[in-house]
Structures are given as C-alpha cells and as structure tokens.
C-alpha cells in the first residue's frame, strides 16, 4: 500500500513493527539511527516516516527538524514514537515539526489509524 520508513535503533522494536506493518501490506524500509534516517528519507522518498525519538548519532528531534527544513523532504509526514506518554515528550516532538506522535508500547490499531490519516492527507 505505502512505502514506510521506520527509524528505530532497538533491534526487537524494529523487527516487531516492520513485520507487522509488512503484514498490513506496506513496503517497510528501516534505518538504525537518526543520521541514517535523514539520508534514507532523502534518497528513498517514503510516503511516511515513523521516527523513534531517542536515537543514536542524531536524535529523533534533530532528524525531524532537518527533514522539515529541507524542501525535498518537508512534505513527507513524520510520526514520532515517544516512550511512555510523557506529555513533555509529546510537546517536544510536535515542536520539532512532527505531524503526529504515538506512544510506546505500540498499539497497532491506534498507530495504523494515525498513519492512515496522514497518508490520505495531501
């Protein structure tokens, strides 16, 4: 259905989410850190980016800022994946330019709804 880029440094989380999204019919690409995530977004032009916020090399907030600042990647929607519903994390994600956020642990249905909303926008 859509090309999704998942930027997540934890191996298990990456495996779980990419498998479940693939099963939903999406094409899933993965990046292991923030810098890699920015590069891949620019080169692969996914329809949506799922960005874990705490990443090595470049953190999720900075990666988001860069993607939103570049004209080539500005329009690609980004969903921040933040840990444990800390309200402050949520604000920070939106302030960095994320289009939406979701909290871990991931509830697939909830995440899918948010993804659908952004994919059918524009």
């Amino acid at each position, binding site marked *: 259905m859509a090309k999704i880029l998942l930027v997540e440094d934890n191996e298990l989380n990456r495996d779980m989410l990419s498998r479940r999204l693939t099963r939903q019919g999406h094409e899933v690409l993965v990046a292991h850190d923030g810098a890699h995530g920015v590069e891949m977004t620019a080169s692969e032009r996914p329809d949506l980016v799922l960005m874990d916020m705490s990443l090595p090399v470049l953190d999720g907030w900075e990666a988001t800022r860069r993607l939103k600042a570049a004209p080539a990647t500005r329009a690609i929607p980004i969903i921040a994946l933040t840990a*444990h519903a800390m309200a402050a994390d949520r604000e920070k994600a939106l302030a960095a330019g994320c289009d939406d956020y979701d909290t871990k642990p991931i509830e697939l249905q909830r995440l899918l709804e948010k993804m659908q909303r952004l994919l059918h926008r524009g």
Partner: protein
Amino acid sequence: MSQIEQLERRLERERRARKAAEAIAEEKTREIYETNVRLQQLNNQLEELVRQRTTELAAARDEAIRASQAKSDFLASMSHELRTPLNAIIGYSEILLEEAEDLVRPELRPDLEKIRGAGKHLLGLINDILDVSKIEAGKMDLFLENFDVAALLSDVSATVQPLIAKNSNVFEVHCDPDLGTAHSDQTKVRQILLNLLSNAAKFTKQGRIKLTARRPVRGDGGYLEFTVSDTGIGMTPTQVTGLFEAFSQADATITRNYGGTGLGLAITRHFCRMLGGDVTVTSEYGKGSTFTITIPGAFPKAAMEPHPSPPEECIAGTVLLLEDEYATRNALGQALTQEGYRIVAATSADDSLRLAREEKPDAIILDVINPELDGWTILRLLKTDLDVWDIPVILITALGDRDMGFALGAAEHLTKPINPKELLRLLARVKSAEAAPDVLIVDDDQATRDVLRRTLVKENWTVREAASGTEALQQLARATPAVMLLDLMMPGMDGFEVLRAVRQDATWRDIPVVIVTSKDLTTDELEWLRGHAMDVLQKGAYRRTELVAAVRAMVEAARSTSSRPVPT
C-alpha cells in the same frame, strides 16, 4: 618605747601586710591568666570539634543529596530497562497472534493470549511501582496544558470499553454538555479515570458501570466532578478505611482473586491532590461502589504538593517562597521542608510584601526571571520597606545571556571577557542608523573602561565614561548617548538601579543598554551580591544542595549578626 620606734614597728607591719597582699594579688592574677589560657585552649578545641562536626554533617547532607539524585537516575533508567523487554514480550505475542490467524491455527490463540495478557499485566504493575517510587522520591512532575474535557472522556471510554465488556458489564456515560476546556495535567487526569474505571470493571460481573462528568461553577475555572460507580462486589467499612493507602489492598484474598498491586488508588489520590483536588468513595458490600473525583478546572496558581510542615519544635526557620512556576515551587518547597523549614508561598507582588511583613520569614526566595512576577520590582519593594529590608533574599535567575538581559530590560547582554569584534557588531546593530556613534561606558573598573574605550575609539565611536551609577546618571543628563554599556556590579548605586532609572525616564527609556557581566559570577561579584543580602542561583543548574546551603547560611547569618548593611 619611743614614739618613733612605735611608728617604725607599725610601718614594718604595714610593709609586710602590703607585701603579703601583693603576693596574693600576684597569685590570683596568675591563676586568672592560667584559667584564661585553659579557657582559650578549650575554646579552640570546641571550635575545632564544631568545625569537624559541621564538615561531617555537610558531607552527610551532600551524600544524602547525591543518593537522591542517584535515585532519580535509577528510576529513570529502571523505567526504560524494565519496559523494553516487556514491550518485546507483548509485541511478539501480538505478532504471533496475527500469524496464527494467517496460518489458520486458532488453537494457538489461547496460549498466545495468555502470554500477551501476562505481559500487559506485568507492564501495569511495573508502571504502578515506578509511579509510586517517583512519588515517594518527590520526583513526580506536573505538566499543565489546556485540553478538551469531553474529548478526554471519550478517549478514556474507548480505552476502557474492552475491559468492561470482558466481564459482560454494561457501560454508561453521562456527561454535562458544557464541560469545556480545562487547564491541568491531562495525562494524570486520564490515568486517574482509567484507574477507577478499570477497578470498576475488574470488580463487577454482569453489572453496570457508570461514568458521569459535571462542571459546577465555583471560583474561576470552576470544578470538574467525575464519578465512577459500579454494581460490583462493593466493600465493607473496614475495607474502605486504608483504601487509598499504598500496599494495602482491601485484603489478601482480593489480591489473590483479582490481582493488582494495591497501588493504583494510592497513586490516584496523590494525583488528585497534586492537581488541587481529591477523591472520595462510598460503598456498600455486595451492592457496589461510587468514587467521586473533584479537580479544579483551572490549576490553582499557588498550589503546591501538600508537604507536612515540620513540627513546631523542629522548625529550622521560615522561608517565604516567591516563585510562579509550579514545578520549581514544588521542588524548592520540598527540598526546604525536608530540611526542617516551614514554607510560605506567594505568587504576586502584593501577597509577597504582605506575607513578608506578616510572617517575618528568616529568608526569602525570589524568582526574578518570570515576567509575570516582576521579581525586580518585588526585590526593590522589599529592600526599601523598613519592616522587611533586612530579611536576606535569594534570587533565582537564569544567568544565561538572553534571560539576564531581558529580565533587566536591557537590549543586549555581553559576557566577559568581551570580544571586541562582537562588541562592535552588537553596538552597530543596536544603535539606530541616524544617531551619531556616541557611547557611554559605565563601569567602576578603570582597566575595563580603558580596554573598551580603545576598541571603540579605533572604530570612530565617541566615548564617554562613568565610574559609578551616580556618574552615569550625570552623564545621561548632560547628553543622551546612542548606546550605553553598563556593568551590573558596581559599588554604591549599582547597575540594576541605573537600569531602572533609565527605564523610567522618558528621554532615556529608548537608549539601548548593553549590560556586561561575567559568564560565571566571580567570587567578587558573589561577595558583592551577598553583601547586599542577596544570593543568586542559576535556575535549572542549581542543585538543591546549593539552595539549602544558601538558605541555611542566610538564616544563621541573620540570627548571629545584629546589624546589616543599610541599603543606599
């Protein structure tokens, strides 16, 4: 005997008596001297002991603070460490459930559901335990925001629906039409409601669970009143007492049959109180229970977590706290209460002055960075009021470049050592295009003035100097400069006063002022501030240790000295 012989004998007797008296006097003097020497030695020993003891106590205190910080770090990392593998257990069991469905292997479902269920249950327990740990360590924060109450309720209802349905219960929601927007901690309100609703779902079978929401108007913001009632197993009066205490679930059989940690309600009540409200319960055994939560619609400004005041005999002192931000006020209040200080809080200039006069605190902590609080005005008011001027004041300020400047109404802020290029660029930017390049340097240090003058003259600036605040005002009166470079820490009339005078004068108000301070306050500057019965702490960067130490020092200094420097 002749008269002469009689007189001679008397004289001799007198001489001998006098000599004896002198001997006694000498002996007494020596005794006094030796006693004094011994006293001096004892005094020295005592001072040495006190010094040692103080060092030991300081070390113990520092150790306690370190332990507290370590606890925070532990909680944060434990939180992450515990949740990560659990998320994997839950996540993979869900993947397997999906794949079992794909492979049409329904017989695998129940086992996988059990794994997933146990994982989720464990996650709930861990979250509860971590919350309680955070609360007890005093590290639970509030995050205030505006949110739509009805939206929150529908979100909560949707989340709890499957749990309620699991025991074949019926769920009813009755909300007032005009619940509006609330200003509070949304995440905590959600957690409170979910806790009560999931309890209701857990303890009710084939019954009815009802959620109601009202907003009775009482004061600004009104109140939010939620009730969660069920037709479940209910509680006996014995079970109700201690219901909200941590670790005392109604009784052991409950735990065995229904699970849970016995922590949820303790957390719920703590959260309600943090938000300025409370929770109550009525119940009838075998019939059901009703929990009522009341929370202010708009978080009350001067609210603080209820910290018990130390008992009368143990009070180390009273501290008046003038801080607008909840999180800071709470953290400070707690740190000080733990040290035995009684806290009085104010959030406005009027309250501040009134409370300072009424309570005569031993120290005042004043946030000068918050625009709503106008700390500088309050400071000025305090220092010029005959009743309270001698109460020591601790300023909390962010000594970062921008904040300091703007807090003082300065156009810009430079830190020493001054980079000449930066200075010139800044001056050029700050002065208006038409004005002649005329700058007034105000600094009591000759060397600083020389350096600045040389730099500026080379770039064709006309330079005037003032070595004090008073001179600065004289120079200003003579002619209005295009820019003023102002040192903050000057003896006599200081930079703060000059700035205030400049801001209040119609002709001078628009002169761009660049204030100059050291990046980190030098010992001299700290001494200067302390001499003005002030201590300055960097917001965010300060540690509780420093604050507590400062308060203690202030209180002790105020108690021991009888005279204080009179404000000029």
